[in-house]
């Protein structure tokens, strides 16, 4: 696959994707989240997996996700993240916001 087909993530949307992933799948470790996002996008998203970690720190600082140690399917010690009640509320807000933005952008593009 050539590089051109991959989409670069919009600024700030990574947080939304992480929240959504955790809301949909429950507790996940960092690698799991990254892979999940890549899989859903059909490997078309241009994601440096590492960038997920600063995002996790930010979200945890906001109190939107919580984390605890657990054991992965391959018996590795890993940190599992899960969405909190505040995170769900935030997700709802952000989804609504996203839809507004999307509608707006689509409307402008359609008019053009």
């Amino acid at each position, binding site marked *: 696959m050539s590089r051109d087909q991959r989409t670069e993530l919009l600024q700030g949307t990574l947080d939304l994707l992480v929240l959504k992933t955790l809301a949909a799948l429950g507790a996940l470790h960092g*690698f799991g989240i990254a892979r999940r996002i890549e899989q859903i996008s059909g490997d078309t998203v241009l994601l440096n997996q590492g960038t997920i*970690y600063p995002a996790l*720190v930010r979200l945890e600082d906001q109190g939107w996700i919580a984390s605890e140690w657990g054991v992965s399917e391959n018996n590795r010690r890993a940190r599992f993240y899960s969405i909190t009640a505040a995170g769900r509320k935030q997700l709802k807000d952000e989804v609504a916001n996203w839809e507004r933005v999307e509608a707006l952008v689509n409307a402008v593009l359609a008019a053009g």
Partner: protein
Amino acid sequence: MRFLRKLGHLLGRRSRLQRLEEEMRTHLEMSIDEGIRSGLAPAEARRRAQLAFGNTLATREGVTDALGWPVLESIWQDLCQSARSLYRRPLFTLSLVAVLALGIGGTGSITSLVRSVLLAPLPVPHPEEIHLAVASDGEPQLLSAPTLQRLASAVTFRGGIAGYSDNCRVALGVDEQPVEPVVAQFVTVDFFRTLGVPAAYGRTFTAADDRLGEPAAVGVVSWEFWRRRLGGDPAAVGRTVRLNGLPVAVVGVAPKRFCGVSLGDDADFWLPLGLHAPLRASPSHRTISDGPVVLAERVRDDRVAWLNLLLRLPAGCQADAAGAFAAAWQPHRDRVAAIMHDPQDRAECSKRAPRIVPSPQGYSNLRNGFRRTGLTLSLLVGAVVLVATANSATLLLLRLLSRTRELGVRLALGAGRLRLARGFMMEGLLLSAAGAVVGLLLAGGLTPLLAEWLVPGAVGGVVGVDGTLVGLLAAMAVLLGLVLGGVPAWFGARLAPQAVLQRQLGGPRGSLRFGRALIVFQLALSVVLIAVAGALAVDLRRTLQASCGYARESVVTAQFNFASAGIEAVRQPAVLERLRTAARELPQVQAVGFAACGPLGGGRLSSRLYFRGDGVRQPADATQHENIDPEYFAALGMTLLQGRVFEITDNASSPRVALISQRLSREVFGGADPVGRRFGFGVKAGAEDWEIVGVVADARVNSVREEPPALIYTPLTQWRQDAGFLAIRVAGDAAALRPALEARVKAAEPGLLFVRWLTVQERIERGVRNERATVRLTAGFGLLATLLAGIGVFGALGYLITTRSHAIAVRLAVGAAPGMVWRGVVCEAFWLGLCGALGGVMLAWLLPLWMGAWLMAELRPSWLALGGAAASGLFAALLGGLRPARRAAKIDPLVLLKAE
């Protein structure tokens, strides 16, 4: 909330960072596992995993940034680095912190002293509304009780009006214990209400406590008295104690911070005005009489002025109050003027018009005495802070110079100049913060000691470490820190890495010259301090050596009060005789004399005198008056210049006789012989007149500092003022004999209360206590500053030797004698010292011009002190230069040149 969470995360960020690093490692491993499972070779799987993860370093940085505040973090790093670098040189750091603590702590102490003595408002609500009545000279104006009553009935403004007497001593008896002196103040029942001071326990006064003619025997005690004498027990309210023998019920306790209206003159008891008569207490008063004056009538008598006026005036009422006050004062003035015979006095009297002035701080005569001391000390502290700053800056600069190589390397490796400068700033701030903390502790401990030393009596009112002081010192510490960090930062930022690395160790341009200037400045300041201390000491010595007109050694004195013991005039001669006999039982006792006031007793009488005959110049004002017994002069060792002293035969029925002081004789009679001349207390000559029988040498009876006053002496048998001062002349050491004397004399008259058993020498010492303390403090700080300057010289020259060791080695190698090298360095120290000494002498010379009259006006410049100070500055510089010089002379050229 979010801030708190962030702060919490910040505190635990190290463990969190470790955790995230572990997560990222696991992430990679999982990624590799996945690759291998999908059939890739392990090396390829690792490559792909790494590719998918992205730049590890950038990720790590992203995480670090997300974890904390980047700016805060780098500041924290600077702080840690500065702390580490200071910690590595404990001696250097400790000495700097000590120097700064001294400057900051000294500032704190003096500030809180000046604030509490000169600036602190009364601890009452709205102190800005408090007004007092003062005479034209600014001293409180005593008023008659009727004046206050007229004012109270005329005035209808909000706020209030009250009156209070000066303090006086009464004898306190609690249960069956022996009596002891306490300080009482008589106040109108509105006193506490006007001030807005409620009782801490019990109550204050009500109108029922002082119905005219029948005052209630009740009193309010001070917090301090209640704690000390009544055991701090709230149940003490309602207890009865005896004051001058009269049972008085304690009905209330004043709040803790309230010590009355004047600082340093704290009352133990507040009593209703009318109670002074049953107690036979007579606080300061000014009486102009045309007939008998009775103590019991004082609350009604318009001729006796004995009350201070206390007004609470809300904003805007001042003009009304001033008018009402003038109207209330008028009848008293007319009444008194009508009594005066002397037309000149009458004219004076009608001109007199006391004013009402805002007095949020109350009144204290301590302030007048403290003003000079306080200002001297402020100057002193200013100098100490400057010296401390200059010294610390010198040391920090030298340290920078000794680190040029390290810094050059850091710069060459790409460290930012700004970051470097920030490090220096941080170091300065750390040092000054540590200095401020130690200084604050120092100030807390030092202030009460200094207060006791410099303003005895004011200790109770001194505010300790409070918010304002902490704020002030913190601001000062920040400023100091910026200055201290600024000096090395300024020069550090100009370091050229290439030059440093090429071993040109001269330091940045101008830094050495600046260091030298700092050292000269310190030397000059220390010379000034020593010169001022010297001048103060010379002045004090001159005062103490000047003849005071009475014996300093071998005299024991004490004060007592007949009235408070209820001993009437007829019984007094017998009591005095008993006291004399009791004292004389000790073989060392040579003479026992009595007087009304005595020297350095704190009190004084004065009377208006009219001298008879031609060619006399009448005194312009009342003349100080002393009432004595025949042995008084012998007991105090005073000199009779002419005529005779009093005899036993000068009694109530014999012609009235008096002695005058030399100064009075000179002022009134010029060169003429005063013996045989006559004077009276009224304008017209009459049979009641007194004859002058002798002249006594002048004596500094009020204070050793002031010029001896013009004085008249009358015999106790012929003038109605009670004796209140006892002087006993002994052979040998007065202080050693005092306990035995005290025991005997007290036993002779158990009902009589004696206070202040002191030798004359001790009375003199007490009078100059704060001046002596000032001299010692100034000298102490001066020596310290000199020491610091010496250390500065030592450090600077030591640094110079290090940088020039190469040149010195070359000179030695080509044949220069070590002695020459030694001389060169010592010469450098000498120049520094000379510049400092000259600068200091010049400053000390100019200081009085700048500072105006208040500080040095009474100080004559002392060549001795100035010379001594200059010599000490020079000496310190030379001493500081000796060791570096020896080191320079001992440089072994072979070792140094081989090392190249």
